[in-house]
């Protein structure tokens, strides 16, 4: 009796040690692309969180005597045409898309997940009319509609991110709806219904949390990367996004039009490419891993 209980106590472990060991073993078998991309994603996340605590005055930073400097120890990504440090502006530019992207991603994943689950689980005329509305939103060309919104309303990056998350809700809801419809035919979900579980519990816990969390995370990351894309694109165009002198990766790239040297625009361009690639690879990796675990 005593032996049995000690055996159990050694097997029992704290939640964090289990978490650590599973993630440690999982980390080791991941492909190189996933490791690299998750490092970059974590870096962007850290930079984004500490960003508001670091003050930066873009006007005071102007110093024409040190313009177009090559990378050095002091300005280790060089300076741009107005003598501002490219590295600092690159770091500060994260702020332009970080919180809007986070808000848009969470909002789209939450609303899309709930709507998709409702459509898939209940079907009937409620599901059909909901999916008709969603399909309607899906026909709107995203970029064009955003430009239209910016023409009519006073443009702000928050408005842009909310609208783009609304434009992404249909595709997320469709993915979740398909998944829920496929799951609804599975015997164990029917068994839960037969056991008398509350439908809300089945939808929120058994379907959305246990089965769709990887899908939703991936879609959230996708929306985040889209907001990054749209923010940089609009800031590049110069009328709707972040305006000079405040830094954004987009309006830094726009310096390619006037810049005599490469680093003020090539480095932010590289940063956009690497960040988006890493985000997408990270999302794919999460979804792939979840599938492997299920198998």
């Amino acid at each position, binding site marked *: 009796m005593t032996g049995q209980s000690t055996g159990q106590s050694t097997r029992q472990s704290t939640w964090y040690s289990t978490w650590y060991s599973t993630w440690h073993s999982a980390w080791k078998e991941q492909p*190189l*692309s996933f490791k690299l991309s998750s490092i970059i994603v974590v870096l962007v996340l850290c930079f984004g969180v500490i960003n508001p605590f670091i003050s930066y005055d873009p006007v005071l930073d102007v110093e024409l005597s040190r313009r177009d400097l090559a990378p050095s120890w002091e300005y280790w990504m060089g300076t741009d045409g107005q003598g501002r440090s490219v590295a600092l502006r690159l770091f500060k530019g994260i702020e332009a898309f970080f919180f809007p992207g986070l808000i848009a991603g969470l909002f789209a994943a939450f609303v899309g997940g709930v709507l998709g689950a409702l459509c898939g689980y209940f079907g009937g005329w409620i599901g059909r009319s909901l999916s008709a509305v969603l*399909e*309607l*939103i899906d*026909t*709107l*060309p*995203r*970029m*064009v*509609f955003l*430009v*239209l*919104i*910016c*023409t*009519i*309303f*006073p443009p702000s990056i928050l408005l842009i991110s909310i609208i783009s998350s609304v434009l992404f809700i249909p595709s997320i809801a469709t993915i979740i709806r398909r998944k829920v419809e496929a799951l609804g035919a599975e015997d164990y979900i029917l068994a839960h219904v037969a056991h008398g579980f509350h439908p809300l519990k089945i939808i929120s816990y058994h379907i959305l949390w246990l089965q769709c969390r990887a899908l939703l995370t991936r879609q959230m990351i996708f929306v985040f990367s889209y907001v990054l*894309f749209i923010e*940089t*694109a609009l800031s*590049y*165009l110069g*009328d709707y996004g972040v305006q000079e002198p405040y830094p954004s990766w987009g309006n830094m*790239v726009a310096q*390619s*039009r*006037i810049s005599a040297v490469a680093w003020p*625009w*090539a480095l932010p*361009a590289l940063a*956009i*490419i690497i960040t*988006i*690639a890493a985000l*997408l*690879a990270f999302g794919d990796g999460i979804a792939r891993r979840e599938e492997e675990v299920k198998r």
Partner: protein
Amino acid sequence: MSQIGLDHPQQKSAMLNEATIRWSLWLGSKLLRGLSLLCGASFIIYATLRSAPGDMVDLILGLNGTPEMKADLRAEFGLDLNIIEGYGRWAWRALSGDLGISITFMPGEPVLSLAGPAFLVTLSIAVVSLLCSIAVAYGLAILLGPPRPRQAFLLGPIQLLNAAPSFVVAICLAKVINELIQFQLAGGGQIPPSWYPIPTYQKITDSIAPFCFAALSISLGDGLFTDLFNALRAELMSLNESLFISAVRAKGAAVRKHLIKNLIVPTLSVFTARLPLVLSAVVIVEYIFTLDGSGYLLLQAAKNRDVPVVVGVSLFFIFAVIVMNLILDLVKALVDPREVAKGD
């Protein structure tokens, strides 16, 4: 037994009838859906217009609008009526080809004659870049066959780089071309080519070069190529291992015909899924290469707050997406009889 011929008239006509009914039902439902989508999407645009803060007419015309212009604008957008009636009048005018008149960007010019030709340019860039990437992806998928560890070293970096947004690719491409021309000018002292891209921003329509650059940067950006490649390759692999292809092999017939026919539907699905994204990408890329397409028109008009032009171009985009989807559905149904049988 051999009396049962194919040309038994009664049977044949019965089968034909049944097929015709099924087909016309399918086509009708698809058309109805397309029409309702068009109505709904244009209503969303109209509702957005109506919900603009303040008086829309003042917002559009600013301080220099004459009373007649204001009255015209009110009539055009049905601003005096309630939202449903106003939409009805606006939509009716739009359907009969009257999309209004440009106010600030190109004053006096009808929107239809601005947006129509420009949209053809946009559509051709989108279709050319989609077709090019499908052709290359298809060829590579067949050439490379099933994934092997050694290919990952080559394909991995390509797939990562392909995630770059198309406008960044376009900027880099334009900059490189620009530098090359500058270099050439410094050396030989020749006149710059007519498609000299950035930063001159002169309108050039007579050259094919910027068109090709735009199509190239769209094919290389936004993960378009790798998405297509991955989808086609996965489909080809699952087809190659499917039972019916084995069965065709085992009876000694040619496999290629079956493979090609079965690849059409997945290819079209990727096409359908990708078209809206490609159309949005064209908007910025056109702007970068100063191509005279509807993306350039849209952004210039938006810069000048020319609402009728922006709305007209948006309607064109919506219409194009719906019509293209209808055409793709039709082709899919012609290839795959299960599409019609499934119904809606």
